[in-house]
């Protein structure tokens, strides 16, 4: 019900944000990344990465392990400050923020992790409530919204379960509900299905696609599973050595991969995605 307001809000933002030239050029961007770079201990992990992510897109981010996918996602979701470059939400620069302003911006993105990262000290419902508590929402609102979110991911009856008593698929659903709690405009999934078996992977991907349709979400999925691209993504960005080497639609990528990195990734046997991590 709260997501239903999004198109109005988005429209309002477009009207009222002629401040940056960029937002005038491409007004329908959920996020744009400008020359993001990050190095740890002298080793460059992400190297001048730029990409525009239109609203409503489901973008796959592929690359072998160590290509910089996770670091890029951490910068885009404001978990990590880039060494240089800039992240913009709807044309508005959000890098270099601090304090309360940074916390508010982080609530506009949701992140789903490979290892679920649920709080074991809380129930399923308590996990979903956490971002709402962090946003200081009133108790009654939190209760109502938690029930709604758990319903959305098909776990309405499991609100009081400790997370240790949920299956892998159920845990990731709780994590998805938690990531969506504050109505983010963009959802980042960092290898969200890599810890799940193939059948559960398909269920979670279908759930994400369904949520994307219902809520008008923009989704970015970092993955090494080709299955994820085929089943859930519209476009793909290929990352190698921290650089963007190719963007294409999923169909184009599989039919005619242009970069060497993409050819290698696509050449993986269909069932062999599990073994790809090396």
């Amino acid at each position, binding site marked *: 019900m709260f997501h239903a307001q999004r198109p109005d809000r988005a429209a309002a933002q477009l009207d009222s944000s002629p401040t940056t030239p960029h937002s005038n050029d491409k007004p329908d961007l959920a996020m744009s990344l400008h020359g993001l770079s990050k190095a740890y201990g002298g080793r460059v992990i992400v190297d001048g990465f730029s990409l525009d992510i239109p609203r409503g897109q489901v973008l796959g981010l592929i690359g072998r392990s160590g290509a910089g996918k996770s670091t890029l996602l951490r910068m885009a979701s404001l978990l990590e400050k880039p060494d240089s470059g800039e992240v913009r939400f709807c044309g508005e620069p959000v890098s270099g923020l601090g304090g309360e302003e940074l916390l508010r911006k982080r609530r506009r993105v*949701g992140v789903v992790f490979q290892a679920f*990262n649920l*709080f074991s000290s809380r129930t399923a419902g308590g996990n979903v409530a*956490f971002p709402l508590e962090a946003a200081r929402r009133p108790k009654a609102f939190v209760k109502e919204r938690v029930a709604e979110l758990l319903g959305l991911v098909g776990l309405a009856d499991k609100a009081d379960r*400790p997370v240790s008593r949920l299956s892998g698929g159920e845990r990731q659903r709780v994590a998805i509900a938690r990531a969506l*709690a504050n109505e983010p405009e963009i959802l980042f999934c960092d290898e969200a299905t890599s810890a799940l078996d193939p059948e559960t992977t398909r269920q979670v991907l279908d759930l994400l696609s369904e949520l994307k349709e219902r809520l008008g979400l923009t989704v970015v999925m970092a993955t090494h599973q080709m299955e994820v691209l085929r089943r859930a993504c519209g476009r793909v960005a290929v990352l190698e050595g921290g650089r963007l080497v190719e963007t294409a639609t999923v169909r184009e990528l599989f039919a005619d991969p242009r970069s060497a990195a993409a050819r290698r990734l696509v050449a993986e046997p269909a069932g062999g995605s599990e073994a790809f991590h090396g």
Partner: protein
Amino acid sequence: MAELLSLLARPLLETLLMVAASTAAASALGFPLGVLLYALGSGGLCERPLLKRAMDRTVNALRSFPFVILMILLFPLTRLLVGTSIGTAAAVVPLSVAAAPFVARVVESALAGVDRGLVDAATAAGAGRARILLAVLVPEAAPAIVSGLTLAVISLVGCSAMAGAIGGGGLGDLALRYGYQRFRADVMAAAVLAILALVEGIQAAGSMAARRIARKR
């Protein structure tokens, strides 16, 4: 037998008081210190490597003092705080100072043992540092903190017996002065058995508390 029990009653009460009071004081000092050690350390909520190193040194130095020496060194502080340096109340001061760094390490390592991914998830949810600490890290670390505090309480029972030797009273004092020095083996045995029972009881209570927290998860 009745004589033994009546001999035990007061020292037992004194030991319980010493251990309870110094546990409370050591936790009050050690908990914030442990949080600080965690927060300032690498991977913490606000890393300050230099400050962290200085605090590490201080905590290690405090922990390496033999308790008897620490007790003597702290006489002036004890006199300032309690008004005297002998007696059960006076023993609480060195006991607290000795146990606080231990509690701090317990808290630090319990917090450091919490999966980094949970901090990421809480950060991504837009939670500030205070909320991450109080609503995520401390509850997640609770079983480890309870287990560690149990160890601290038990080592306080041991130290309180030593404090007894310098007029702190308690079961250690009874065993030493009444049992050893007056050749009353039965009194010494009774006092040691009482300490043993106390330690067993504390360990059982601590384990049960930790289990109870874990069972809800």
